[in-house]
């Protein structure tokens, strides 16, 4: 058996091991590769930066723990930025399985930034209906969320003073891992109630959302862990996303090398087989 044949029949667990090591080693010994900021991530950053103090920023945490590694760092970076800008931060989720995680996330960042619940921020929790919740919020926010996650009446929250519906929201960012997510916020929210919308999503979803970005339907897009790392770099608070970028680059390089090697072996085998046929 030639080397090419042996390599093409290699135990797939060896490939898993190579990928595992390419991920683990840069996490243990980071190199600090440079991170270039893309215009789509800068779009979200610049818009938040341009908002006046006490503007209403609504962050919809539309994911659950399954997408935590990609979207959690995005949410932390966005919340830190919004709190630093002294915006009124209203958070919620359209995913029932993400409520506990979202509450923990918002509370943790608010505590770190010294913000007070009710005055500076609120977590409305989850309300059933997906797209219907967005439409309901567009008509009357208090009928979609009569009480916050802790059971307190939303009408009594000072952070929502002057906010009756989505029309009173200055900027909304949906961090979506699927449906309902960014697309639903555009279709049933922005398109009808005319507020500015930005998006954050998992890497798998990003190519599908680029058409919305190009047409101006969303003003920025944070895609996957890479987008989160860019946002962390923009706000100058490097976290888990930046730490993972070396590993991401190393695994991508390993996959590219594996694809090239496999193709080389495949074509060399095919060439050898053809040569054998010609000899016969």
């Amino acid at each position, binding site marked *: 058996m030639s080397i090419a044949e042996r390599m093409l029949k290699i135990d797939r*667990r060896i490939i*898993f091991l190579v*990928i*595992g090591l390419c*991920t*683990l080693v840069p*996490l*243990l010994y980071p190199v600090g590769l440079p991170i270039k900021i893309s215009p789509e991530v800068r779009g979200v950053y610049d818009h938040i930066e341009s908002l006046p103090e006490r503007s209403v920023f609504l962050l919809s945490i539309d994911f659950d723990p399954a997408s*935590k*590694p*990609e979207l959690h760092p995005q949410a932390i970076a966005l919340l830190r930025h919004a709190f630093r800008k002294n915006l009124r931060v209203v958070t919620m989720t359209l995913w*029932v*399985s993400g*409520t*506990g995680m979202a509450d923990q996330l918002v509370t943790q960042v608010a505590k770190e930034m010294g913000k007070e619940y009710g005055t500076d921020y609120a977590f409305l*929790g*989850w*309300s*059933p209906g997906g*797209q*219907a919740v967005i*439409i309901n919020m567009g008509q009357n926010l208090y009928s979609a969320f*009569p*009480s916050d996650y802790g*059971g307190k009446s939303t009408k009594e929250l000072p952070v929502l003073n002057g906010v009756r519906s989505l029309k009173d929201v200055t900027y909304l960012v949906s961090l979506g891992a699927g449906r309902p997510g960014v*697309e639903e916020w*555009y*279709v*049933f929210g922005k*398109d*009808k109630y005319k507020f500015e919308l930005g998006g954050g999503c*998992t*890497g*798998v979803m*990003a*190519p*599908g959302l680029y*058409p919305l970005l*190009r*047409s*101006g*339907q969303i003003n920025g897009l944070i*895609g*996957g*862990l*890479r987008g989160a790392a860019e946002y962390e770099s923009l706000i100058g608070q490097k976290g*888990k996303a930046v*730490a*993972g970028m070396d*590993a*991401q680059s190393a*695994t*991508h390089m390993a*996959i590219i090398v594996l694809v090239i090697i496999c193709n080389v072996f495949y074509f060399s085998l095919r060439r050898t087989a053809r040569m054998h046929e010609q000899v016969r």
Partner: protein
Amino acid sequence: MDAMVLGAWVATGLTLLIFSFLYKDTPLFKLAEHLYVGVSVGYTIVKTYDTVIVHLIVKPIVEHGEITLLIPVAIGMLMLARYVPKVAWLSRYAFAFIVGMGAGLAIPRTISSFILKQVEDTIRPLLSLAGPDGVTFSMNLLNPASNLNAIIILLGVGSVLFYFFFSIEHRGMGKAVARTGILFLMISFGAAFGYTVMARMSLLIGRLSDLIEFSDASYGRPTLWLLILTVGALFLLGRRDRAHPPDNQ
């Protein structure tokens, strides 16, 4: 035991059990998989009950006397009629309500957002007439609004649409256009696959980052101890399988 430490041990253990699938499909993986499904469903049921039944139905009716809420409750209850064959037809009213409302809400908004807006964005001028220079042509590939990109999009949309047009045989010039369409499709699939790889690697990075964090002494080094335990269990399971091979018949 501190809740954080307990959480670290549970998270580490379940991560390693799931990762054991990379070696081979074992009862360890099955255990973690079933736990994941069970916990997810249990959590969803509890949260849905608390939010919908308690906070959105019972409390407003009992505490605020919002009797009108009984109308959606009654329509929702009709769904349960499916379980009683004699009155199963009643559930059709609830479904009709949901389908009608859903379609009514979704169709116009989806057409407006995903068809009209996207068509509007696709049909862009190939030459710019604005500005003191008269007719201009911007070549910047990095600018999504450049004229060159408008031409590329036009070529891409046209050729891909032609590729899916099966009433004409793809021969001669038609073949060349269809092939161009395939090329655009391949680039699109490649970009989607590249992003998918990035996403999956991000998930691996997330788990490994947690495993590194939980290898700290402040958590009691669960990564180290549970890794030894998992490897030991895999070794024992492997020996058992060799001694008593599973009967495929």
